[in-house]
C-alpha cells in the first residue's frame, strides 16, 4: 500500500513511519501542509495520514483542497484536538476517519486497513460467508455449519461488521463508533461483554473458533487456514 504521511511532530512521524514500513507499506513523509498538498495532488496514494495542525497549511485546508481537486485518496486525520466538534468538522470536510492523539500504532493500522479498502467493502451483497459461518442480510439469518443461530440486534450488527472486515483487526473504539455511535471511552465493558456473548453463540458450540481477540488491539474474524 502507498501511504502519504503528513505530520510535523518528528517523534510521531518516525513512529508511524517505522510501523508502516515494518508492515511492508511504501511511505512518503513530509512535515508541512504545503508539501503535503503538493504530494497528495499527484493522487497515486492508497491512503493519506494527515495531522490536523500543520505549519504552512493546516490539515483541514489541505483536505478541502484535495477534495476540491477531486483527489479521492482516503484520508485519516490525526489530531491533538479531542472535541466532538473537531471530529464532525473533519468528517464534514471529507476525512474518512479520525484518530485522536495519543494513539497506539495498532489502532492506526486497523483504521488505515478499514478505510483504504473501503471501496471493495461497500459492494452490495445479500450474503456474507466466513468459513462455515453464513449471514443472510435480507432475511437477517445467521447459520454456522447449517445450524441456525439467534442473534440480538447489536450482536447481528457486530457480526456483520466483523464479517465484512474478514481477516482485518477491528479496534475497540472502531466497534464503539460503528456499532453504538459512541464517541467517548466507556468506563465499563460494553464491547467486551457483547463480544463475549457473540462468541458464546457463534464459536462455543463448535470446534474451531472464528472470532479472535488480538491483545491490546481488538478483534478479528477469520476462517481457519
Amino acid at each position: 500500500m502507498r501511504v502519504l504521511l503528513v505530520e510535523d511532530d518528528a517523534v510521531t512521524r518516525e513512529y508511524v513511519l517505522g510501523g508502516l514500513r515494518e508492515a511492508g507499506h511504501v511511505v512518503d513523509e513530509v512535515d508541512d501542509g504545503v508539501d503535503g498538498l503538493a504530494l497528495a495532488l499527484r493522487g497515486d496514494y492508497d491512503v493519506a495520514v494527515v495531522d490536523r495542525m500543520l505549519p504552512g497549511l493546516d490539515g483541514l485546508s489541505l483536505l478541502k483542497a484535495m477534495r476540491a481537486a477531486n483527489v479521492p485518496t482516503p484520508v485519516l486525520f490525526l489530531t491533538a484536538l479531542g472535541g466532538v466538534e473537531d471530529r464532525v468538522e473533519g468528517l464534514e470536510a471529507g476525512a474518512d476517519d479520525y484518530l485522536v492523539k495519543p494513539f497506539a500504532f495498532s489502532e492506526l493500522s486497523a483504521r488505515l486497513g478499514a478505510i483504504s479498502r473501503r471501496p471493495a467493502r461497500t459492494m452490495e451483497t445479500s450474503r456474507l460467508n466466513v468459513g462455515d459461518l453464513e449471514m443472510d442480510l435480507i432475511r437477517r439469518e445467521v447459520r454456522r455449519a447449517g445450524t441456525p443461530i439467534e442473534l440480538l440486534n447489536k450482536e447481528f450488527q457486530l457480526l456483520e461488521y466483523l464479517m465484512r472486515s474478514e481477516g482485518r483487526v477491528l479496534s475497540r473504539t472502531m466497534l464503539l463508533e460503528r456499532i453504538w455511535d459512541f464517541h467517548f471511552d466507556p468506563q465499563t465493558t460494553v464491547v467486551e461483554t457483547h463480544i463475549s456473548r457473540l462468541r458464546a453463540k457463534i464459536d462455543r458450540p463448535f470446534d474451531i473458533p472464528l472470532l479472535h481477540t488480538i491483545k491490546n488491539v481488538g478483534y478479528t474474524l477469520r476462517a481457519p487456514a
Partner: protein
Amino acid sequence: MLDTPFVRLPESFPSSHLRLAMLVVGIVSLTYLCVGWFAYHAVGTNLTQRTQAAARLSNLELEELSRSPDVRTLLEEANSRGAQADPDDTIIWVGDPSGVRLAGQELRLPGSAQTGDYDGADIGRDPEDRYHVVVNRLPNLILVTGQSYEESESISSFVLVAFLIATLVAAVLASILAWMLAQRGHKRIDAIERTLRAVAAGDLDSRITLTKPNDDLSQLSVKINSALDQLSNTVAGIRQVSVDIAHDLRTPINRLGIRLERLQSELQPDSRLKEQAEEIRDEARQLTQTFDALLRISQIEAGARRARFQALALPEISARLKEAYEVVAEEAGQSIRFTVRHSNNLTLVLGDMDLLIQLFANLIENAICHAGRGAQITVEIHATENKAVMSVADNGPGIPEAEREKVLGRFYRLEKSRTSKGNGLGLALAHAIAKLHNADLQLSDCNPGLKVSVAFAHFQDASKEGDA
C-alpha cells in the same frame, strides 16, 4: 455566563419613540389650530372694517353730490346706483328730513335710526344677513348707505374651514411620519435585541448592523458592538489556551506512549520488566483519559456546541443506551430496566445527541460501578407540564446528603470509592453537559440508593427561547 435571560416587555407597552411621535402630532395639531383661530379673527376684523369703510365711502360720495346746486344730480345718481346694486348686498337710500324716500332703493328704516349694524329682517332686506348702515342727516336730506357683512362672513368661515382642513391634513401627515419614525426606531431596537439574543445563544460573531443617521441609537450600537468584540476575543482567547494546552500536552503524552510501546517490544516476553512496562502504559492511558475528560468539560462549558442543537426524543436516547448497557449490567449481576412513561412529543428536547448519550451513559456506568452486585437500576423517562425528565436510579449505597453537591465538582470521589475504577470526572462531565442544555441535574435519595434526574425544557419552549 452567557445565558442571562432576556425579559421581553409586553407588546402593548408604548415605546419611547411612539410616545415622542404622539407628542409631535399633538403639538403640530395644536399649533395649526391656534394659528387658524388667530387668522380667522384677524381676517374677520379686517373684513368688518372694510365693509364699514365701503358703506362710509359710498355715503361720502352721496354727500359730495348733495353739495351740487341741482339736487337732481344727487337723486339721479342715487337711483342709478341703487338700481345697479344688488339690494341684498348694498343699501342706497335718499330721503327728506321727515323720512320720505326721494331716490334709491326701498328701505324700511325707523325714523330715529342712527349709524350702526342692523339685522336684515329689521330693515326689510335679506333676513339671514347683517348690515352696516350709515345714516347721514344733512339739514335738508337724509343720506343712508349700507353694506352687507355676508361676503366678509363667508370669507372668514372659508378661512376657518381651510385651517381646520389644513390641521387635519397636518395631523394625519405628522401621524404617518411619526409612526414611520417610531417603527424605524423600534426596528433598530429589535435588531439590537436580536443580536444580543443571538450572542447569548452562542453565536459570538453576531453584530448589530449600523444604519445611516449617526444618532444615539447608532452610538449605543457601536458601543455594544465593541463590547461584543471584547467578549468574543476573550472567549476565543480561552479556547485558544485550551487548544494550546491540548496540543502541547497531548503531543508529549503521545511520545511517552510511543516510547513505552517501543520499550515493551524490545523486552523479553517473559521478563518481569515487561509486566511493569504494561502497567506504566495503563497509567499513561488513564492519564490521557483524565486529560480528555477535563478538556471535554472545558470545551462544553465554553458553550460552543449549541449551534448543533436539534430536536431529540429522550426515548431514542434510552433505547440506544439499552442496547449498550443491558448486557453489561446483567454481566455485573445487576438488572436494568428502561421505562418510558410518556410519548415522544412530550419527551422531545433540544440538544446534542452525542453529548446526551454521553451524559446518560456516564450516569448508567456510575450506577453499574457503584451500586454493587444484585442492584436494580431503573432508567425512567416522564414528562411534567414544563419539563421532560430522564432519570437514572439505583438501590445501591447512594451518596450521603452532605456530599451530593460536591460529587458534581471535578475530581471529587467518595472515600469508599477511591480505590475503585474511575477518574472522578464522570458526574462533573454529566453536570457540565446538563448545564449546556439548560437542564437541571438533581441528586436525590432513593432510600436506599441514588437517583439522578435531569429535567429539560420541552422542545417547543426551548426552541422558542432560542429563536426569540
